[in-house]
């Protein structure tokens, strides 16, 4: 669905609408199926999804997220560069005053190792992500639980003042 259509639909949304979630790939990643799948997962949890698709440049991601002010921003990457791309773009996102408190998460295959280093999870969190869901170790189940218990839990964490 096009962002404009989403806005139109959101304006006329029924009362059960839980809000809008933005799903996006990162700049260097041309994979699509992970984004399509996440859109369906999140829609099934009651949200409207704006899917920005693959290869989204940092400035486009900041601009679209600022315009849409979603309940949650979900970044997904599977090409092995998600760690670097994620660190860079989350700092750009947090630098926008409108997005200081917007919940942001990242998941997927975030580097080229078989097991994602927990220290890198900490680095991504410190750079501004509210949660990190590496592909190994039940990332998807944890992500589902995270979104399903939303917005109470992540609101608390973001309000508690993460850096960025």
């Amino acid at each position, binding site marked *: 669905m096009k962002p404009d259509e989403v806005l139109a639909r959101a304006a006329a949304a029924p009362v059960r609408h839980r809000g809008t979630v933005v799903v996006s790939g990162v700049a260097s990643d*041309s*994979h699509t*199926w*992970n984004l399509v*799948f996440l859109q369906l997962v999140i829609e099934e949890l009651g949200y409207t999804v704006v*899917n920005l698709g*693959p290869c989204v440049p940092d400035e*486009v991601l900041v601009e679209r997220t600022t315009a849409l002010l979603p309940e949650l921003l979900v970044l997904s990457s599977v090409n092995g560069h998600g760690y670097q791309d994620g660190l860079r773009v989350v700092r750009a996102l947090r630098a926008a005053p409108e997005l200081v408190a917007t919940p942001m998460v990242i998941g997927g*295959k975030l580097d080229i190792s078989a097991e994602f280093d927990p220290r890198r999870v900490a680095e991504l969190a410190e750079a501004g992500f509210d949660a990190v869901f590496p592909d190994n170790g039940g990332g998807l189940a944890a992500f589902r639980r995270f979104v399903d218990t939303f917005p109470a839990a992540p609101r608390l964490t973001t309000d508690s003042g993460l850096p960025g």
Partner: protein
Amino acid sequence: MSGDAGTGKHVSACSGPADFGRFVRAHGGSRALVVQPRMGFGTPAEMRTGLLATKYADARTVGTITLDSYTRVGELGAVDRALRDGMALNGYPLVTHDRATTTAVLAGIVDAGFPVQVRHGSAVPHDIFAALVAMRMNATEGGPVSYCLPYGRTALAQSVRNWAECAERFAGLREFGVEPHLETFGGCLLGQLCPPSQLVAMSVLEALFFFAHGIRSLSVSYAQQTNLDQDVEAVFALRRLCAELLPVENWHVVIYAYMGLYPTTDAGAYRLLGQAAELAVTTGSERMIVKTVAESRRIPTIGENVAALEHASAAGTAAAPGGGPPEGDSQTYREAAALVEAVLNLDEDIGRALLTAFARGYLDIPYCLHPDNRGRTRSYLDEQGRLQWADLGSLPLSPVVRSGRGRRVTSSSLLADLSYMQRKFDSPWPDSGRGPARSVRTGQRGVGR
């Protein structure tokens, strides 16, 4: 051993490289199959080794130079840095290596018995085509839609302009006595879950686009999908539409072995590859691009590629004779013909027709997230593993598609469909029939590969 023994010796001194299309038509079709790898290496020495191994594989082969992904997206500075710092590239940087280097890579390999095609994947291919023309390299592939919408964010209108300019520039090779060949990538799109009729229509439309911009040696692609009977029907529909619509005789069909989530076991990978060869031979297709046992894990080695080429060639030879094209209009033919006709009626300029078609949703790739794709169509696999429309969106198919509205695609059904072929071919109990064992037991494995 590939190539006619000795044919290279009879080529006159003034001639350029052989026409890729004419070569494939001479050696493929009528149950013979020309096989080809996907293969690209960053260093000239490795690239040369790969081409030599392809040439001397025990199969009728053509060579491939796959370009690296920085060259594909036009980040030539990143190529320079990688070459300077000794970082491995995932393909051959044709634009950056100087001409003498590439000439040395090809010397004694390319001849009348072994043409080579350059494969890339760029919606902004000016530098690539400039290098091809400068090197008199006369075979490549792509398309204004198929190299744009599934990847990245280049505007479709820009890609149409780029591909029109590049095809015309490439056609200029004829001034040097060299026949340029272009293959459509339109038979692949997102690799999986696009119903075959739209793959067929896109391949035909891109071939017509190339013809309109001066290319006279063409091939049309079709990527193996999820049901052999449906694929056979689709390739016959593709052949019939090309015969009806392409104003040249010099065209052939290239089958891509499955482009979706690949089996993880060697046995499963080989059986799936064998089925692609069966599809190719059954439908009189002239050429096939193989996949290897390493596909689900990493970039394949040269040895794995050679094994895949030889397996595909042998499987093609061993395939049972097919029954020929279906009587009358198949369902896939009716749908593909309706799509092509609707698009061609929009504008006499095929580039503008393609743009209008996507704007109106007359063409609409299921699950494709590009801003210029309407994204209102949906598809699913039925109980036989055939790809069906779940939602037609605005496709002009309601007169020819019986069902096709209102089936809900869920995250778990999407996962099951995406991993269907992997599940089916990794199963230790080979299916005698062509139907699925439609379970969802593999869960989320493989999404996003």
